[in-house]
C-alpha cells in the first residue's frame, strides 16, 4: 500500500459518516457601493496610488513625467511600445533583474480590497510584476467589481496556468509592526484607471 | 413560582453578603425564594480541570436539592453555565435535561423571566463593570466585542435604573480577568498579570467600585486591589441592585 492509499484509507475511515451540505453563496456580496470611489479609497489606504486617464496617451505622458527615462521599463501593452520594451517575454526571467518599471493591464479590479486580477496572458512572464522595482497596472473603470464573490463569478472557468490578485505595493510589518512598503516585490504600485 | 437559590460554594463560605443580597433582591421582586440547605457545589472546579468524571456526586446532590423548583437562580454566571451545559444523571437523564432548562443567572432571570427592564435603586458612585467571560460569551448576558452584532447588556440594562451610578468605559471592554478556576494557581504568573491589567484599566477610569456578576472574578481582582492597598472596592451586582 502506498502512502497515498494509506492516507486516503485512513481519511475514509475517519471522516464523519454523513456529508454536510455546502452552503449557497447567493446572499453574499450584495452590497451596491460605488465601485470607483471605493476602489480609489481602499487603494490609497493600502499604500497604492491611482491616476485617472482617458487613454494610453495619458499613461505615456504620466510615465514620462514621473519615471526616470534612462531606467529600464517593460510592458505587455503594444500601446506603450514607445516608452517601454515589449520584446522580453521569451527572455530568461533572471534578465529582468534590472527592470525599474513593469506596466501591464489587469482583467478587472475589486473595489472592496483594491486588488487587480492578472493572469499569464497579461503578464508576459510570471515574474514580471514581482521583480520590478515599481509596478503600474492599467484597468478600465468599467471593469471594477464590488467584492471577491463577483470577482470569482467573473473569473468563472477561465483557463490560466497562473493568476494573481495584486493589492498595492509589496509590504511587511515584520520589524516591530512598522509598516514598510517594498519588501521583496514592487516598492510602489500605480493604477491607471482608464475611462 | 418557586425559586431555588443556588449559591456558589465559595460565595456561601466567603462572600455571604452576595447571597444575602441575591436572596433579598429576589424577594423584593416578588419571588418565593428558598435556599435548599443541603446544596454544595456545581462541580465546575473539578470539571474544568479535566475531572468531569468525578462530578457525579455533585450532580446528584444538585438534582436532589433543586428538582422541586420552577426556577433555579444563581448570582454566578460560571456556575450557572456549568450546570446548564454539564448537569447529568445516568439514572434519569431526562430530569437532568429538564432541570438544565430551569437554571438562570441572576440578571438574565430578572430580564428574561421576570421581564423587568430596570431596577430603581440607588448607588451614587463611579463604577466599572467587569464582564465575566462565562456570563458574557457563553450565557450571552451581554454582547461580546469580537462579534459584528448589535450591542446589548442585561446587567447594564438593569443598572441603568440605578440612581447616581456612573458606569465607566474601559479600554479593553471584555478581556478576561485571569481567574480561570485552578488556572489562578497553576498559571499564577499569567493569571496575576491579567488581573493586574484589568485592575489598571479600571483605575485609569478613576472608579470607586468594580462590579460584575461573578464573585470568582471579583475575588481575584479584590486580592490584587488589597495587595496594592488600593482605595477601589469590589461589589457584586446583586448588592447594587438590592439597593432597590
Amino acid at each position, binding site marked *: 500500500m502506498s*502512502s497515498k492509499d494509506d492516507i486516503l484509507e*485512513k481519511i475514509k475511515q*475517519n*471522516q*464523519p459518516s454523513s456529508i*454536510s451540505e*455546502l*452552503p449557497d453563496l447567493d446572499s*453574499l456580496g450584495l*452590497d451596491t457601493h460605488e465601485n470607483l470611489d471605493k476602489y480609489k479609497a481602499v487603494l490609497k489606504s493600502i499604500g497604492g496610488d491611482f491616476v485617472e486617464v482617458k487613454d494610453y496617451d495619458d499613461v505615456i505622458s504620466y510615465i514620462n513625467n514621473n519615471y526616470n527615462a534612462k531606467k529600464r521599463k517593460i510592458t505587455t501593452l503594444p500601446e506603450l511600445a514607445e516608452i517601454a520594451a515589449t520584446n522580453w517575454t521569451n527572455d530568461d526571467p533572471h534578465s529582468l533583474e534590472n527592470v525599474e518599471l513593469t506596466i501591464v493591464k489587469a482583467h478587472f479590479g475589486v473595489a*472592496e480590497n*483594491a*486588488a487587480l486580477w492578472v493572469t499569464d496572458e497579461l503578464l508576459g512572464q510570471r*515574474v514580471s510584476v*514581482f521583480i520590478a522595482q515599481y509596478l503600474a497596472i492599467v484597468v478600465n473603470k468599467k471593469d471594477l467589481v464590488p467584492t*471577491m464573490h463577483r470577482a*470569482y463569478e467573473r473569473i468563472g472557468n477561465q483557463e*490560466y*496556468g497562473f*493568476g*494573481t490578485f495584486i*493589492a498595492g505595493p*509589496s*509590504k511587511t510589518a515584520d*520589524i*516591530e*509592526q512598522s509598516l514598510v512598503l*517594498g*519588501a*521583496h*516585490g514592487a516598492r510602489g504600485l500605480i493604477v491607471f484607471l482608464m475611462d | 413560582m418557586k425559586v431555588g437559590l443556588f449559591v456558589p*460554594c465559595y460565595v*456561601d*463560605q466567603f462572600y*455571604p453578603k452576595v447571597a444575602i443580597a441575591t436572596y433579598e433582591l429576589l424577594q423584593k421582586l416578588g419571588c418565593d425564594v428558598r*435556599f435548599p*440547605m443541603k446544596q454544595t457545589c456545581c462541580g465546575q*472546579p473539578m470539571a474544568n480541570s479535566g*475531572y468531569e468524571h*468525578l462530578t457525579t456526586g*455533585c450532580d*446528584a*446532590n444538585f438534582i436532589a436539592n433543586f428538582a422541586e423548583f420552577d426556577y433555579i437562580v444563581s448570582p454566578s454566571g460560571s456556575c450557572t453555565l456549568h450546570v446548564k451545559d454539564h448537569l447529568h444523571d445516568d439514572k434519569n437523564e431526562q430530569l437532568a435535561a429538564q432541570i438544565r432548562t430551569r437554571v438562570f443567572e441572576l440578571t438574565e432571570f430578572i430580564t428574561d423571566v421576570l421581564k423587568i427592564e430596570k431596577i430603581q435603586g440607588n448607588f451614587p458612585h463611579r463604577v466599572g463593570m467587569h464582564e465575566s467571560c462565562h456570563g458574557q460569551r457563553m450565557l450571552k448576558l451581554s454582547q*461580546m*466585542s469580537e*462579534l*459584528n452584532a448589535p450591542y446589548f447588556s442585561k446587567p447594564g440594562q438593569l443598572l441603568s435604573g440605578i440612581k447616581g451610578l456612573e458606569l465607566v468605559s474601559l479600554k*479593553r471592554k471584555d*478581556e*478576561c480577568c485571569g*481567574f*480561570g478556576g485552578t488556572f489562578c*494557581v*497553576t498559571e*499564577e504568573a499569567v493569571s496575576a498579570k491579567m*488581573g493586574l*491589567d484589568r485592575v489598571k484599566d479600571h483605575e485609569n477610569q478613576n472608579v470607586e467600585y468594580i462590579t460584575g456578576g461573578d464573585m470568582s472574578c471579583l475575588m481575584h481582582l479584590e*486580592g*490584587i486591589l*488589597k495587595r496594592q492597598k488600593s482605595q477601589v472596592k469590589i461589589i457584586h451586582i446583586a448588592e447594587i441592585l438590592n439597593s432597590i
Partner: protein
Amino acid sequence: MTGNIIEHSKAAETFNKDIKREEWHDETLWMVREKRDKAAFQLPEWELLRETASQIKNNVLSNNHQYLQDFEEQAKKNGIIVHWAADGAEHNKIVHSIMEKHGVKQIVKSKSMLTEECHLNEYLTEKGIDVIDSDLGERIVQLRKEAPSHIVLPAVHLKKEDVSETFHENIGTEKGNIDPKYLTEAARHHLRNIFLTRKIALTGVNFAIAETGEFVVCTNEGNADMGVHLADVHIACMGFEKIIPQRKHLGVFLRLLARSATGQPITTYSSHFKKPADGKEIHIVIVDNGRSTQLGREDFRNSLKCIRCGACMNTCPVYRRSGGHSYHNAVAGPIGSILAPNLDMSKNADLPFASTLCGSCTNVCPVKIDIHQQLYKWRQLLVKEGYTPKSKTIAMKAMSSVLANPVIFDFAGKTVRFVMQKAPGLVNNSFNPWYKQREMPAPPEESFRDWYKKNSRESKEKNNEQ
C-alpha cells in the same frame, strides 16, 4: 513532560519576569486584534461570511476523501506532480529527493507552518542543503536560530533593536541602526540575491481547490512569487485539510483570511498556481502527519477547519502574556493547544490547561472552530489517559468528596475560615501560589447558610411552627 520541553506555565513565568517586554508584547498583539475588529466591523455581513466559511469547511471534513482525489486528478492533468507523505519524515524525504534528482543543494522557502511542524529545515541542513527562509520575519528568526513565535507574525516577539543586532552580525548592516525601513531595505537586497540564484523554491499552500487542481499562496512581501518564478522547480507543501471544494469558495476565504489575520482587506499577493510555466516543474506534497487521526476524533476534528490566520493568538490574553515559544510547538496559542495533543499527548498535555476558557478565540475564528470547547474536552481526555500529575488527581478526588457531601462541605468551609482567622500565616505564605501577588479573601464570621438558618423567611416560618 518528556525531553527538554519547558512546560507552558514555567515558560510563561519566565516570560513575565521582564514586565516591560511582556507588556509591550501584549499591547502589540492587542493592537492586531483591534485591527481585525476594525476590518470585521466594516463588513455588515461579517458574521454571515464566518458561518458560510464554517459550513464550507464542515463539508470538506465530511468529504475530504473525494475532494483529495478530485484535486490530484485535476492537478495531474495540469502537469503538477503530486506526492503523498504519511508523516513529517516522509515529507522531508520527498522534498530532499526532488532536490537530489535535480542535483541542487540550495533552496529558498516562503512561509510554511507545515514545514516547521515537520522540522524540514533541520533535516535538509543535516543533508548538506543550504536553506534560506525568505519571509522577512522568518529570515530574522532563522538568523537568530530561533523558531517563529507566531504563525503570521514570526518575529512579533522581537524588538527593532534585536533585529538590528541580528542583521549587523549576519548581513552587515550598520551597528545600532534600528530604522525598520533601513533594515527592510537591507533584507531586500540580501534576499534578492538569494531569489536570483536559487533553482528550487518551496512554498506552503493556503488553499487547494478540488474542482480545478489549482492552489493559492498568499503573501504581503511577494517572496513566494519571487522565489518560484525565478526557480526551475516549485515545491508546494500542504496539510491535506487545506483542500476546499470549488474555486468560487476562494471568494469567501480570501475575504476572511487577511482581515482576521492583520486587519487588511486582502494580502498584497494571492497567487493561484494551476500549471507549471514552460520547461518548469511544480510539485505538491500532500501531508497527513496525524491529521487523519484528528479527523477521526469526533470532539476535535473541527480543529482541521483552521485556515492559519492567527486571530485566536492575537485575542488570547494568555498567548499575549506568555509568547508563542512557551507553547513549544510550530503552531501555538489556542489553535495550537487543540492540534498539538493529537500529535503527542505526553509532550503537549500542558497546553489545553494554558487557558482560562474565556472563549474569545472561538468568536474571532473565521471558520467558527469551537476552540474553547475543545480545550475543555482535551482536558477530560488527557486526565483519562493519565497525562496529568498524580498529585492533581489525588487532590481532585479529595475535592469531589468534600464538595458532594453537604455535611463535610459545611464542616470543611468552617474549618478553613477558622484557620484563616486564627492562624492566617498557615495560608498567607509563599507555599500558597495565590498569595504570591494577591491577598486572600477575608474570612467572614458566618457562612450564608449560617445566616439563612437564623434570618430567612423560611427558617422563621419553621421556627414559628415549632
